[in-house]
């Protein structure tokens, strides 16, 4: 505040100014803290209550008995139940049930598969749009941008029919290929590619490098941060996808064999209604934890890429 000192006529005016700025700062921090608490409360609730046993959970949620969150009530039983492959029914007989391990596996396969397809198609297509000249380029690109306006529901209706036609229901194909291309990623990557100076291309041409070689050896390494961002956003999108898997992969029978093709979000929904979690909300919360925690770890590792990518996109899986 030293630079302001000269503008004040006397000490008391300076003091008043200082008092005012300090009060303002305090109010500001109070406002931010209140909203930070608003953001954090659900997380705190989730972490704390997922570790306590059922009776403590009931007391905690029904009577707001915060003392029940103490360590003496802690248990890993909720988590054990989430990953169990069977449970005991009322008569004490074991009943097979899908485990979250299965959902995790499904989701990993879909996440990696769809990310691979999305990134390959996006890199190749944006290379064509950014670097190469061909007839109809502008028209095709405008066409692509126009599809971004169309709500996904319009496509889902027909894609659902296509899935049935191709006999893709309850298969990984439906989950991986139907969203195998993202117009937004093409758009995003094209912008990065366009920033690479033309001189590099011309120099490469002088050396007799083919277009594909130039893409692989020059453009992809330079655009690596953007590609990383796309990979991470795409992985997160697969982890959080819900609507499409609900329609095409929500459990089911096929070829007289029970297939469980659910992804984690659908798994969570089915956990909520399953026998095992009936009346046992602590297990439901533990399920939510299991789905959220990997995302958090992922976020802490790749904070930079995620925040940069998101500020440009506004997509959420």
């Amino acid at each position, binding site marked *: 505040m030293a630079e302001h000192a000269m503008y004040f006529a006397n000490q008391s005016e300076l003091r008043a100014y200082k008092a005012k700025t300090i009060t303002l700062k305090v109010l500001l921090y109070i406002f*931010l803290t209140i909203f930070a608490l608003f953001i954090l409360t659900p997380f705190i609730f989730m972490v704390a209550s997922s570790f306590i046993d059922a009776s403590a959970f009931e007391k905690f949620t029904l009577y707001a008995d915060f003392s029940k969150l103490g360590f003496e009530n802690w248990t890993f039983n909720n988590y054990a139940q989430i990953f169990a492959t069977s449970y005991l029914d009322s008569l004490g007989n074991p009943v097979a049930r899908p485990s979250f391990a299965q959902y995790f596996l499904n989701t990993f396969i879909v996440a990696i598969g769809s990310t691979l397809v999305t990134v390959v198609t996006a890199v190749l297509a944006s290379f064509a749009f950014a670097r190469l000249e061909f007839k109809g380029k502008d028209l095709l690109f405008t066409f692509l941008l126009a599809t971004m306006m169309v*709500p996904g529901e319009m496509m889902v209706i027909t894609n659902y029919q296509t899935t049935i036609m191709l006999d893709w229901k309850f298969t990984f194909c439906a989950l991986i290929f139907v969203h195998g291309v993202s117009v937004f990623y093409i758009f995003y990557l094209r912008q990065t590619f366009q920033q690479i100076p033309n001189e590099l291309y011309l120099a490469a041409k002088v050396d007799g490098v083919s277009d594909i070689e130039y*893409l692989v050896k020059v453009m992809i390494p330079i655009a690596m941060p953007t590609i990383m961002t796309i990979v991470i956003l795409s992985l997160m999108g697969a982890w959080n996808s819900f609507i499409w898997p609900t329609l095409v992969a929500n459990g089911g029978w096929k070829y007289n064999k029970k297939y469980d093709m659910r992804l*984690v979000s659908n798994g969570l929904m089915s956990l909520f209604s399953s026998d095992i979690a009936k009346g046992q909300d602590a297990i439901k919360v533990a399920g939510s934890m299991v789905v959220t925690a990997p995302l958090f770890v992922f976020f802490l590792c790749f904070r930079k890429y995620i925040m940069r990518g998101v500020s440009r996109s506004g997509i959420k899986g």
Partner: protein
Amino acid sequence: MAQEILERNVEKPNISFDGGDSLAIDPTKARLISKRRHTTLPQWATAWIVLIPALIFLVLFMFYPIVNTFFMAFIQDFRWVNGAGSFALGNFINALSQPCQSWDTTTGICEVYNILPTFGFGNFAIVLTDPVFPKTILNTLELVVIEVPLTILISLLIATFLNSIKALRGLFQTIFFLPYVTNTIALGLVFNMLFSSGQGGIMNIILNNLFGIDPINWLSPNVTTWSGAASRFSQGVVIVVYAIWNGLAFKILVFMSGLATIDKQYYDAAKIDGSSSFTIWRRITLPLLSPQILYITVTSFIGAFKMYTGVMAVYSSLNRGAYYFGGEKGEEWMPIVGWIYNQLDANFDKPGIAAAGSLVLLAIILLITLLQFAVSKKRVHY
């Protein structure tokens, strides 16, 4: 003049710097003098080859679905049958060529005729006179009108406050971003429990301690011993609170990146003039942030009209499935998209109705986008 500047700025994002093709080397000639012998393809051929993978997916799962859904919406009495001609037009022609459903076996005369599909606005009539669909439009509109402006205002405040502090800024920024990296269904459950129907639900306890309000049954359609079924209002509150909680992160991030580009000199000049903090915010921050505000407003309104998972997630732990949105029949707060998916799931052999619903949604989104760009022409300073 102003219009010209505006257009130039819109078309050219400030990040692109062009190396310039002005070099005296012509790449085609460069290839001739190259010592390495390469049979390089012409550019247009390479372009189409690298476009093939993306185009296959685009045509199959994007261009064709748009055309097909559009088409289905305008065919009345359209029944989708799996098999040959599964795309709408093929099915349509197929159906037309089979006017008869059953024949009199002895005489060979048609007994029951098929209802033949026809072009028209019949599906739209069905959709708009549906007992639920118009209500879903109102539901969505109500939620959007309350949620979007609130979220934008709060995130704007948080972003400007964050921008003016130094200590703990990184920590606050990370905290405010957290909701973005969460699973909507998982946190929907947590919100359901925070707004527990039990007497000791955390939200009930807070309200009771602060304002002495009696416990509220927020979401459950069941009548409990101490309270009636959840009212439309209380359910709406939970949905809006969750939507705000979910929506702040992205908007704060965009506003922060916008604020970072504002030249500090403006603020110094205003301070020397003795402007108050509010005047500075009103006269400098807001106008200079207007491109970001426009962007956020447009995307938020579009996104909010497509709300579905967020609303459903709040009810998810009531075990009523993915198409339950409160109330007796699960229609209390059903959004447009919820209705479309419900239709698709329930009668996917009659997709024309869901298709017509999705076209209505498209029309609403286009209308709002146009409206906002019309308004923004006067208000946005680039």
